[in-house]
């Protein structure tokens, strides 16, 4: 196991921070195994067909409910067991296949994909990751058919991003030989009808102290859920409060070990996030389609509006950004499947990129369609409302920028520390060079597989990596450990890294395609890649050049001021 781990290439973002592009491990762009691909193709097609005939998203939104019949049919189609291993009656989908399914579902109906995600990506995930064979045999077959809908219960009124602050307890009752759960969870998706809840609580007593993951089933004494919340978007999903009053959980229903709860929750979310990015890609494609349809039909000033530059810019940007986010998602899922590994930093970046791309795309869509974008009887406003949640849940985009970037900074910070020590020790040039170890210290080169036709984009990418990684070293030298608290800087590094990762994914994808089918048949993708890389490079340089600006000081002062005054601080009248 350890040996296998060692043989794995470093996660792709690591090289971006170090200024060394690991060009071999991400080329060719991972291709799905043909058998798996065919199963995924057919599954997506089957869902599409079912949705064409049966799905009424407007009604789901209006009634604020996914009807029971729809949930049952998704179960009958087998979709609710997509990632459950075959030995437990599921389909054993890999990451790419699952992402493709979520993408298609989200494209059709965001409520449905969040329902599926809460069930499979996070609800059942603790069991899939850490369940023992008995637990899996007991619960997973029901999960796979959809008889047992799952939910993931972590958030509490006082504990959102800071999951460690949770107050729900699991007191060990020695006399009865059970844990007693007490506390409240809020905003739990599927809370109204889930049968199985993965509940996180802090254990106390003879069986150990610390966070644990507990299975609670509907109908257990002392368990109840509140009414479904009224929400801005994804209104079809049932988001409820959960209350636990002396709910007795047998030791057999503890997932993993007491003390591991936090780790289980994090790992669950880390793996679930990528599919959220995929869902957002689907949403973006649907918006783009609606926007283009309108722009080619709507005439103003005796021209279809697609002929106007300001509309063209939006449509083209929407397409290119969707391409970038799609490439990042499927590079990540492909590497996860190929190397049997996890890529938490990349998955988090894909969630941020996907959700923000969708938000921007949906905003542009509403602009392109004009006033009807604001009207209730058209679908645009629903897309807008549905899209917003993706920046908030499964780790807010702030938290993901922070955690991903701090993780990615680990390697370079070791190298910088070594270098600083060597400088102190008065080593010569050679010693210093050696001490830098992992860090490139020279310009990044264009990956050898970038073909001539996109050589310029390859150069753009290499230059951006060079500038970015140089800034990483610079920042680390100056701040050392204090970087942990420098959120202005970290935010910019995160945004630079996210764009670089997407550029890398785009380059690998388009180069792979050109190598396979030639330039002529890759023309559309070359165009998208150029459009994406040109803008992404500008964004990276923008972040890097202003990694620290006087504005940061102003922001600190203004935030302080606002905190004190509690409102706009300079009334004009």
């Amino acid at each position: 196991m350890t040996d296998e781990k060692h043989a794995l290439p470093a996660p792709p973002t690591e090289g971006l921070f170090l200024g060394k592009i690991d060009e071999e491990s991400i080329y060719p762009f991972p291709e799905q195994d043909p058998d798996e691909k065919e199963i995924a193709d057919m599954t997506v097609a089957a869902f599409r067909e079912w949705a064409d005939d049966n799905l009424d998203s407007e009604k789901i939104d209006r009634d604020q409910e996914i009807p029971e019949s729809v949930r049952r049919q998704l179960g009958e189609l087998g979709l609710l067991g997509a990632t459950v291993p075959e030995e437990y009656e599921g389909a054993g989908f890999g990451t790419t296949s699952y992402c493709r399914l979520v993408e298609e579902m989200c494209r059709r109906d965001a409520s449905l994909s969040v329902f599926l995600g809460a069930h499979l990506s996070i609800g059942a995930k603790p069991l899939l990751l850490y369940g023992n064979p008995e637990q899996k045999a007991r619960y997973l077959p029901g999960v796979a058919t959809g008889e047992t809908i799952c939910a993931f219960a972590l958030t509490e009124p006082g504990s959102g991003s800071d999951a460690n602050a949770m107050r729900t307890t699991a007191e060990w009752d020695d006399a009865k030989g059970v844990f007693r759960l007490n506390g409240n969870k809020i905003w739990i998706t599927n809370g109204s009808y889930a049968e199985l809840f993965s509940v996180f609580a802090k254990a106390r007593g003879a069986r150990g102290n610390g966070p644990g993951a507990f299975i609670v089933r509907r109908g257990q004494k002392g368990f109840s859920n509140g009414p479904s919340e009224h929400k801005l978007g994804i209104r079809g999903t049932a988001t409820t409060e959960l209350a636990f009053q002396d709910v007795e959980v047998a030791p057999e229903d503890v997932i993993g070990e007491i003390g591991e709860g936090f780790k289980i929750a994090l790992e669950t979310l880390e793996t679930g996030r990528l599919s959220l990015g995929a869902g957002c890609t689907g949403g973006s494609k649907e918006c783009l389609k609606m926007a283009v349809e309108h722009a080619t039909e709507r005439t103003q000033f005796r021209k279809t509006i697609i002929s106007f530059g300001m509309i063209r810019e939006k449509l083209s940007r929407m397409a290119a950004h969707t391409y970038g986010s799609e490439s990042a998602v499927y590079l990540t899922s492909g590497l996860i499947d190929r190397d049997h590994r996890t890529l938490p930093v990349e998955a988090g970046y894909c969630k941020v990129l996907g959700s923000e791309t969708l938000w921007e795309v949906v905003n542009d869509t509403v602009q392109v369609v004009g006033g009807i974008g604001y009207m209730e009887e058209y679908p645009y406003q629903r897309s807008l409302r549905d899209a917003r949640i993706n920046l908030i849940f499964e780790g807010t985009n702030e938290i993901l920028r922070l955690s991903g970037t701090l993780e990615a900074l680990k390697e370079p910070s070791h190298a910088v520390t070594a270098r600083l020590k060597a400088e102190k020790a008065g080593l010569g040039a050679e010693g210093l060079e050696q001490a830098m170890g992992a860090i490139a210290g020279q310009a990044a080169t264009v990956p050898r597989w970038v073909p001539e036709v996109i050589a310029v984009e390859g150069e753009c990418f290499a230059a951006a990596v060079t500038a970015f990684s140089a800034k990483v070293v610079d920042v680390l030298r100056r701040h050392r450990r204090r970087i942990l608290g420098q959120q202005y800087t970290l935010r910019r590094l995160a945004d630079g890294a996210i764009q670089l990762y997407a550029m890398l994914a785009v380059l690998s994808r388009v180069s792979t395609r050109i190598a396979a089918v030639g330039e002529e048949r890759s023309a559309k993708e070359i165009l998208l890649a150029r459009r994406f890389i040109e803008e992404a490079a500008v964004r990276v340089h923008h972040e890097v050049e202003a990694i620290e600006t006087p504005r940061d000081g102003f922001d600190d002062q203004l935030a302080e001021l606002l905190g004190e005054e509690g409102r706009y601080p300079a009334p004009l009248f």
Partner: protein
Amino acid sequence: MKILVCIKQVPDKDARLVLDDAGRGIVQADLNWEVNESDRYAVETGLRLKQTLGQGEVVVCTLGPDRARKALNTALAMGADRGIHLSDPDYRGGDPMTVARVLAAVARSEQAELVLCGTRSDDEGYGQTPILLAGLLDRPAVFLTMGVEVQDGSLKVIRELEAGRQEESIVPLPAVLAIQSGIYEVRYTSLKGIMAAKRKKVTQPTPTELGLSSDQIGGTGQRIEVLSMAPPEAGGHCEFIEADKPDVAARELVEKLRREAKVI
């Protein structure tokens, strides 16, 4: 009862078709493919008959290149028992007659009592194959089948006529039926079915194995030669119907669509 269902893989309905340089066919690269619509109803019919009879075998068969395997897999995922993929390069090209010859050979070698086809393919749309096939097998054929039941060892078949009229008849077995789209709901393929399809048997008989010589089939056996293809010319005709009452306007619209546009 052994039921042979013949299906064809066609470009999907939303595909953007581009003519090839010679102007006699379409560019196939980068197209998405699906099972021809009425053929799906033929598969559904086969599966329903087997279900009501409580026994039998549904064998699906397609003539086409490697990619057509996916069409077979779709039918297998719906529940068909076994597949036959006529993928030999010698089968390729051809016209409805050469295809019917190959399918007839399969029907004979399988000793299928009932052969089901769709009425016509959504791409080339000849609508001849099932009838030619029945002729070659010397069996009765029903075109535009709207319903079928087994009755005392024969088939009770409903056929669609003009203007919504229907004809009911008793057809002795063995027979060939061409199934019309929309006669009932086609089942969705479930993920379980999709996974199971991977384990079902698909054979690839060669022309020799089916007792066919190369001058009867494929490009060599073909009699119809396509000279050219062209997209329809875009017509820019628009007409406003003026009427005070909606039901009067609707009636006029229906009339125009029927008599002038000939679309309903």
